[in-house]
């Protein structure tokens, strides 16, 4: 393009002095348009431009109104009017003159007149009625150029009601000797079909004639109509399949004139059009699909050259292959082709690769597996478009095991991009999904709101949330789910201060008070509301409020919340729900106490803990509501540790120091040196070390090791880890994925459409497989390799066995070894690895690996296996074995 710049520079002086020669593409020296453009380029401000254009429009207006203006001058004026309109200024007074120019001008003036009409007006404009007669006249002209112009304008816009007036003449043109006329007539009819299908019904047979036209241009044009017809009603056009296949074969085989080649590819537009038509014809129709397999394969094979245009054909071809009745051999080739897109360094192709994957994973989620690492990279791509497409892809492969990680990624993305939209969407998610939502969704949401530096953007987001909640509370609140009310209370308590003080400062308080008084508000929610009120009244706005009642209430609440005895006297405990304790409870929660659970509930929890957990712990445990009360202003920030996905090791080990965090379940690896020693003594290559699926260094390793900058593979490792949590559960048992679905409403709704209720129930109550493990003797090195290759994992804390003469870890592992015949591969420090293999049942002969680590008073166990059911059942038996000990 450098020559273009050069030319621009060299052209400038001549253009500015306006002494260029006449001729095609060159500016006439006396051109008023030239003067206008030149004038505009010399201006420095928008204001000046406005003034100049206004003056110009005035002069144009004067000239068009003058009876002395010739058509030739009018043409020149019209060009200037078009220019002014393009700059964004209204020149509507000239529209009628544009029509006049098209009506009365000579051929070249007419051309500009028609152009101006097509730029100024659209098909709903009444002015167009004035043009009908002119168009009719021009269509019947003996001058080819005039006919072309008329056909061009009707293909762009024509009043629907006037179509019958010109239809017979346009129809006649289908048999015109000149191909350019036939081509334009076909396109005009296509346009008529789009705006008024009934009007052209009688000429369908003529379309067939156009399809068989000897000129490839006319034939191509007719395909626009056929694409539309077939899309709407494929059944009626099945008989055309053979013709379409033949045409495509001829095109692919290079039978068209070379004129139609584009960068040495034969008629790519035509090919793509045909491929789209074939997709509609072959969809859900095996017989028809079989007719096209050969030509589809040939298209794939021929489009090998490395040029954008061949990729365009390939992409369409892949789409067609995945739309028509499947043929495994073709699908394989298409999948390979998608791989080329995904792996391409060209960003456009990568995007289309992701898009194609998104399309095909709906049929086979495993197709995403070979591209895990690329997908992970795209997830952090600097281009939002790529990111969004990646999320779309992830959404399609969401299942029970990876839903938490994927939803988290989606929320992250939403927050970054669309503040207002995000709040609104979350509002509807909360209102609809409400109480069936997993608790970590509202949790994550609050965290996102609270996280981040206190910059303008964050404040806007919060303020928007506050405003939207206030207006929500002003309406009917009875239907809002409790969870949502809790979120609302927290946000209002936390960020109401961001509201402008123009409104009554007590309004938020009153809304909360109303919420508190409502009967359907649950006790838990009430405590949240009270927490919010406490926060609000500690702010001077309310305790110093001019509204005396409010001030009194705020002060009362403050004093009462500080003085328990007084409160007991003022508010005697007569209501059995003990709601007077709510303030106290919320305080206690704020101080870190666990929420109260009824004995019944505790029993249930206990049972649940023993039962199968279908949800993976992922990279870190979602911190439960109980561990961080929402009344604590800083809590959401602490919660952020669960975003360990993107956190690096130093950050996490730093956070480890703070006592508020629960770290069980966070993945640990072997101490670096310890593991290395094992590796070398076993004579293995040391690579598995860096591939161990955790970026965390064991706290037991020496500080110098921890500080040491990690190897270059570290980020890669993180990505692998992310990959393992995103792609977990893909494959054999996708029905399970519906079990825990209500995480966000759209995920829920979309999947429920395809969900089979009975499958869900079956999946929920899937019986445990019979378990008969035998020891599996492997070396530490082999263990490491196997560990990485297994995709199904599970984490759980088990109780430790304590004996007098043994370390708790050794004792526990020994107990497991004795009862379940597991092989203890190695024990290093507080960590141990164990392996076994299944003798019977569905996963016969398959291994399962356990990684155990002592944490506080329990044993954090992480199980992995290639068989999905194995970790579950083994864990169950481990629990049983240890309880019995």
């Amino acid at each position, binding site marked *: 393009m450098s020559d273009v710049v050069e030319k*621009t520079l060299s052209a400038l002086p001549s253009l500015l002095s306006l002494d260029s020669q006449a001729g095609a593409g060159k500016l006439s020296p006396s051109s008023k348009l030239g003067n206008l453009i030149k004038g505009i380029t010399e201006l420095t401000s928008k204001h000046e431009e406005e003034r100049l254009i206004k003056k110009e429009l005035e002069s144009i207006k004067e000239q068009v109104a003058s009876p002395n203006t010739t058509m030739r001058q009018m043409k020149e004026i019209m060009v200037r009017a078009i220019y002014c309109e393009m700059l964004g200024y209204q020149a509507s007074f000239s529209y009628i003159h544009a029509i006049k120019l098209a009506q009365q001008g000579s051929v070249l003036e007419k051309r500009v007149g028609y152009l101006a009409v097509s730029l100024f007006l659209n098909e709903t404009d009444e002015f167009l009625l004035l043009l009908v007669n002119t168009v009719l006249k021009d269509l019947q002209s003996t001058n080819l150029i005039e006919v072309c112009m008329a056909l061009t304008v009707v293909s762009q816009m024509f009043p629907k009601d006037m179509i019958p007036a010109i239809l017979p003449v346009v129809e006649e043109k289908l048999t015109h000797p000149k191909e350019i006329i036939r081509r334009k007539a076909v396109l005009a009819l296509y346009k008529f079909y789009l705006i008024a299908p009934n009007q052209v019904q009688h000429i369908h047979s003529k379309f067939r004639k156009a399809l068989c036209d000897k000129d490839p241009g006319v034939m191509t044009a007719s395909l626009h109509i056929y694409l539309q017809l077939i899309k709407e009603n494929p059944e009626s056009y099945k008989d055309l399949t053979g013709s379409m296949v033949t045409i495509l074969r001829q095109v692919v085989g290079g039978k068209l004139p070379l004129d139609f080649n584009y960068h040495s590819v034969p008629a790519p537009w035509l090919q793509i059009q045909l491929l789209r038509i074939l997709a509609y014809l072959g969809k859900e129709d095996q017989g028809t699909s079989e007719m096209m397999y050969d030509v589809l394969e040939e298209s794939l094979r021929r489009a090998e050259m490395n040029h954008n245009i061949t990729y365009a054909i390939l992409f369409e071809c892949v789409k067609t292959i995945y739309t028509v009745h499947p043929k495994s051999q073709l699908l394989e080739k298409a999948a390979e082709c998608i791989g080329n897109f995904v792996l391409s360094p060209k960003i456009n192709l990568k995007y289309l690769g992701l898009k194609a994957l998104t399309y095909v994973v709906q049929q086979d989620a495993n197709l995403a597996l070979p591209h895990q690492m690329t997908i992970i990279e795209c997830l952090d791509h600097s281009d939002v478009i790529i990111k969004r497409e990646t999320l779309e892809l992830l959404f399609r492969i969401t299942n029970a095991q990876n839903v938490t990680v994927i939803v988290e990624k989606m929320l992250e993305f939403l927050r970054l991009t669309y503040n207002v939209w995000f709040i609104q969407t979350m509002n509807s998610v909360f209102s609809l999904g409400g109480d069936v939502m997993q608790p970590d969704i509202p949790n994550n949401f609050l965290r996102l709101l609270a996280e981040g530096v206190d910059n303008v953007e964050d404040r806007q987001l919060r303020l928007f949330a506050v405003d939207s909640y206030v207006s929500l509370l002003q309406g009917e609140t009875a239907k809002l789910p409790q969870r949502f009310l809790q979120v609302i209370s927290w946000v209002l308590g936390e960020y109401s201060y961001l509201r402008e003080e123009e409104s009554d400062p007590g309004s938020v308080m009153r809304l909360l008070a109303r919420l508190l008084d409502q009967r359907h508000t649950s006790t838990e929610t009430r405590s949240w509301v009270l927490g919010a009120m406490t926060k609000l009244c500690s702010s001077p706005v309310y305790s110093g409020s001019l509204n005396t009642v409010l001030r009194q209430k705020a002060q009362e609440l403050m004093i009462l919340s500080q003085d328990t005895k007084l409160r007991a006297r003022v508010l005697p405990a007569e209501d059995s729900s003990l709601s007077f304790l709510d303030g106290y409870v919320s305080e206690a929660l704020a101080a870190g106490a666990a929420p109260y659970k009824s004995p019944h509930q505790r029993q249930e929890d206990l049972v649940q803990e023993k039962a199968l957990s279908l949800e993976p712990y992922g990279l870190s445990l979602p911190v439960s509501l109980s561990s961080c009360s929402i009344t604590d202003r800083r809590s959401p920030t602490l919660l952020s540790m669960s975003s360990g996905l993107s956190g690096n090791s130093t950050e996490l080990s730093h956070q480890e120091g703070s006592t508020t965090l629960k770290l069980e379940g966070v993945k640990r690896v072997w101490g670096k040196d310890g593991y290395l020693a094992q590796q070398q003594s076993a004579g293995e290559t040391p690579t598995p070390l860096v591939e161990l699926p955790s970026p965390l260094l064991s706290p037991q390793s020496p500080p110098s090791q921890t500080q040491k900058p990690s190897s270059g593979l570290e980020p890669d490792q993180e990505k692998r880890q992310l990959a393992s949590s995103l792609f977990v559960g893909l494959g054999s048992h996708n029905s399970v994925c519906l079990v825990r679905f209500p995480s966000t409403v759209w995920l829920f709704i979309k999947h429920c459409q395809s969900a089979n209720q009975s499958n869900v129930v079956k999946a929920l109550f899937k019986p445990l497989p019979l378990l008969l493990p035998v020891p599996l003797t492997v070396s530490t090195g082999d263990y490491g390799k196997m560990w990485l290759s297994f995709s199904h994992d599970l984490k759980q804390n088990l109780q430790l066995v304590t004996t007098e003469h043994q370390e708790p870890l050794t004792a526990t592992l020994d107990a497991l070894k004795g009862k379940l015949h597991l092989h203890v591969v190695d024990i290093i420090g507080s960590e141990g690895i164990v392996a076994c293999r299944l003798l019977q049942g569905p996963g016969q002969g398959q291994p399962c690996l356990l990684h155990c680590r002592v944490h506080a008073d329990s044993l954090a166990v992480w199980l992995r296996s290639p068989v999905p059911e194995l970790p579950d059942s083994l864990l169950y038996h481990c629990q049983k074995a240890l309880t019995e000990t």
Partner: protein
Amino acid sequence: MQFMLLFSRQGKLRLQKWYVPLSDKERKKISRDLVQTILARKPKMCSFLEWRDLKIVYKRYASLYFCCAVEDQDNELITLEIIHRYVELLDKYFGSVCELDIIFNFEKAYFILDEFLLGGEAQETSKKNVLKAIEQADLLQECTFPV
């Protein structure tokens, strides 16, 4: 195709062709939004955008951005090639085209576009045929009214 816009790096509109009926106000809003969005994107980013329910395909040639809006099922890559073919046509017609050619002769650029795309669909993809049609119309112009 729903519309095509040409604009400069400074955000000045150089050409606009609408294939769907839209009010003047909507047109202005759409072009303003799109020009802003596209100019904010970095050169290494991908040429496709999802915008409202449309797909935007754009490409920069020297100081000019070419931007097309197509429907969801349309092929993005072929749309890029439509842009490229249009640039080739302009180039051939003006003889290594530059932004100034299009500024000063925008009506010619429109005529070429109308021979290439009709009602939003590719009408003639043979470069030779498009230019022949344009030349014929131009020739008529020169013969009838010598400049």
